[in-house]
């Protein structure tokens, strides 16, 4: 794979340059709506489609039958009634604080041991691949997942202490029979929606190169290969907490069917399992309910969502934090700079220099974060490196925004301290830092 070395970003593993994104695809905006703005390069011809897509993402969907066919199709089983119910202001979700609080911006994936015909998780025979807490009238919701926390104080360098919380989940009000002890589960908060088009525009060859390059401290990184329903073949995965989706269109269509029960050309079957007879007998709003034109508009909207530019980059504490971030080898996975390639789906995103702080690869993050639920090639301990761009605004967009796949981390520092496995060395370095160094590191992350 040496011939791929030239494809690697020059900054990989080295001191990174000032990380401003290409001005054509990023915006200077530090408000609560920073994740909702179009790229400056949005062409007038794409403007109407952007706003059409925005309408669909903001739409609260209607239970059929309805006079409003274009916005009908919710259910029969669903988690939430709109995209932004989970992705408020296009931001990330959060975990409930108590067992009483419903999962409003998170869900639980389900499967049983084994693989589906394409190598993906094998759905449970009664509950499918995701716990849908709600049903339309006449269809029982599948049940609820309750979260409880245990807390532990961790000692840090310089005498500081920090409290971490670890969630456990329990299923209640199960409507379709008991769940087996062998059930595999994966709780996941809603990820943010911006910048995804740029990540899709990163060539697969870059992923191959990133996975091949030698990295420090036992860090590896590998591509998840997943099923592309349109191409009918296995391709590199890059979206989702385990990189289990190949592209944005399938990610969106997957969320429509999985989270809202809305069928689309990619997933034309309602989300009813065989024994869910009430579900199967419920009216549908169309076959499919979301047209290809609507799906394409939604995809186009996601393509055109701009990334917020970093802020406060010249403040000494932030500059120091950036250096510490590099010294802790965070950039080995949170790769600061990538180049997009040819991208005929949305040419405005092609050949851009971007700073997503991800390699889109899977990494073993250790036992404490493991969900023990394989997802294609991703093991129960592996997670995709989440992009960090714009993450400093997450709690401005929603003060409750959480971090890590299950929202257990309430701050970015907590998220860092949960790192283990391939990232154990980085986490150790951060734990040993002086308090002022950790504050600088946090300030840097907040600036992204």
């Amino acid at each position, binding site marked *: 794979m040496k011939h791929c070395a030239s494809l690697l970003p020059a900054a990989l593993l080295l001191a990174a340059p000032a990380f401003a994104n290409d001005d054509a695809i990023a915006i200077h905006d530090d408000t609560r709506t920073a994740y909702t703005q179009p790229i400056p390069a949005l062409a007038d011809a794409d403007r109407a489609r952007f706003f059409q897509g925005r309408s669909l993402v903001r739409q*609260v969907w*209607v239970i059929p039958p309805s006079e409003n066919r274009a916005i009908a199709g919710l259910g029969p089983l669903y988690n939430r009634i709109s995209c932004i119910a989970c992705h408020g202001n296009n931001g990330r979700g959060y975990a409930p604080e108590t067992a009483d609080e419903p999962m*409003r911006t998170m869900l639980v994936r389900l499967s049983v041991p084994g693989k589906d015909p394409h190598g993906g998780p094998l759905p449970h025979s009664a509950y499918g691949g995701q716990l849908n807490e709600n049903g339309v*009238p006449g269809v029982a919701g599948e049940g609820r997942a309750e979260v409880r926390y*245990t807390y532990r104080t961790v000692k840090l360098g310089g005498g500081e202490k920090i409290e971490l919380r670890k969630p*456990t989940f329990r299923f*209640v009000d199960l409507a379709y029979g008991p769940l087996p002890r062998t059930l595999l589960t994966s709780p996941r908060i809603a990820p943010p929606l911006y910048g995804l088009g740029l990540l899709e525009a990163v060539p697969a060859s870059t992923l191959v190169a990133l996975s091949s390059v030698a990295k420090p401290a036992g860090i590896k990184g590998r591509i998840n290969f997943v099923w592309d329903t349109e191409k009918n073949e296995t391709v590199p995965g890059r979206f989702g907490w385990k990189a289990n989706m190949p592209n944005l269109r399938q990610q969106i269509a997957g969320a429509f069917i999985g989270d809202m029960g809305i069928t689309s050309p990619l997933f034309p079957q309602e989300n009813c399992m065989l024994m869910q007879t009430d579900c199967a007998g419920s009216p549908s709003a169309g076959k499919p309910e979301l047209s290809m034109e609507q799906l394409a508009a939604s995809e186009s909207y996601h393509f055109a969502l701009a990334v917020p530019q970093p802020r406060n980059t010249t403040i000494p504490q932030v500059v120091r934090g950036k250096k510490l971030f590099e010294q802790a080898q965070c950039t080995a996975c949170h790769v600061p700079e990538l180049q997009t390639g040819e991208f005929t789906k949305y040419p405005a995103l092609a050949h851009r220099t971007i700073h997503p702080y991800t390699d889109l690869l899977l990494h073993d993050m250790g036992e*404490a974060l493991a969900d023990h639920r394989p997802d294609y090639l991703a093991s129960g301990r592996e997670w995709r490196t989440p992009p960090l761009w714009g993450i400093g605004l997450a709690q401005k967009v929603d003060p409750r925004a959480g971090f890590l796949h299950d929202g257990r981390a309430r701050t970015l520092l907590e998220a860092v301290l949960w790192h283990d496995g391939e990232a154990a060395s980085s986490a150790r370095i951060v734990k040993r830092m002086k308090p002022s160094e950790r504050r600088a590191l946090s300030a840097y992350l907040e600036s992204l």
Partner: protein
Amino acid sequence: MTKWTSTFLLLLFSQAAVAAEKVVVISSYPQEVISQFEAAFEKKYPQYRIELQWRQSRDAMSYLHQPHSPADVYWTPAQRNFAQLAREGAFRKLDIDLSGLPKRIGGFQISDPDGYYVAHETAGYGMAYHPAELARLKLPVPSDWKTLGDPAFDGHVMLPIPSRVGYAPILIDTMLQGYGWDAGWQVLSRIAANAALADAGATFITDDIGSGRYAVGMTMDFFAVSAIANGKPIRYTYPEKVGYSPAHVAIFKESANPEGARAFVRFVLSDAGQKLLFHPDIRKLPVRPAVYRAKPVDYFDPFAAAARATYDYDTASGLQRQELVSALFDALITRHHAELKAMHRALCKAEQKAPGDARLTAARRHANWLPLDATQVNDAALQQRFIQRNEQSAAIEKQWDADIAMHYAEATRIAQSIAGDLP
């Protein structure tokens, strides 16, 4: 940390927990409103879980008139639906404490006098503007609707079409009631001459004002005020006579969970519920005056404004004639927008060239001609024909079109004659 992994990773399964009772709420509120109220209500009343069924106004009426699973609460901005459903006996009388909740804002009736539904919040009508764009154009911040009719605003205004944009009918009718029938249409005609017409669709007026594409837009306050609270570079101002569009809440007679329904209604009307309306993503106007003591800086207080300038808007009349007025707007403005703009430009030129010319009176008479007068528009039989536009209403509109085209053409011809623009 390794200690945790061995102790707590086991997932427990149970069916023994007590399920929260659901409260079925029908609404057309945007997700931002739903999310805030759902979370706050369920936190205060963990024994209840909201099941929100979203339906737009017409769809909701169709749904409720067919056999359906029982709903508990209707909570939405849809005045006409509430009035009709109350007439049909669909609601229970609200047996909850409504003290501290006035039924009127100044002269505006906001709650049902008979007590079957009550206002939960209201929105006001005014103007969103882009200060930097106004400054660049050397235009003043508008103080009243009439300002937007000034020729200096030509090309810089957005005016929503009432037959297409859900919130616009009351905006238009408050102008017609506020200025009077004839004068109101004259103001609207002048504004339309300067304006781009905003259709239903995916863009918001605040998108176009925020981007500086237009300098001023006539819109409901919360669209703009929420955008301002979230950082858009725009401002919002109310005219002297503010119109309001209240949203209501009621409990269905068919409610399967009346206790839960009452809890929800009590909550949305409570101090805590009303203060949620101040959230940056919502920015609606509470109907409980006492909560304005805790309002954000510069938040509009309709009760204080009403005390300064009384304005008796006849809500019942406005709702009854809504479709008829919208149809008239389409004839006078939407379908003849190009002719209307040309006519006003010609009139303006003629007035500048020969302000004392006696022919101007005739030209203005043609320009201001209306197919219906203030009495005819309140004719119940005529209003009924426009509730659902059909062949009968189409025939009437066809005649309006012909008459309006003739009058606009004549006004333009006279004006051009005065200005010396005719061969």
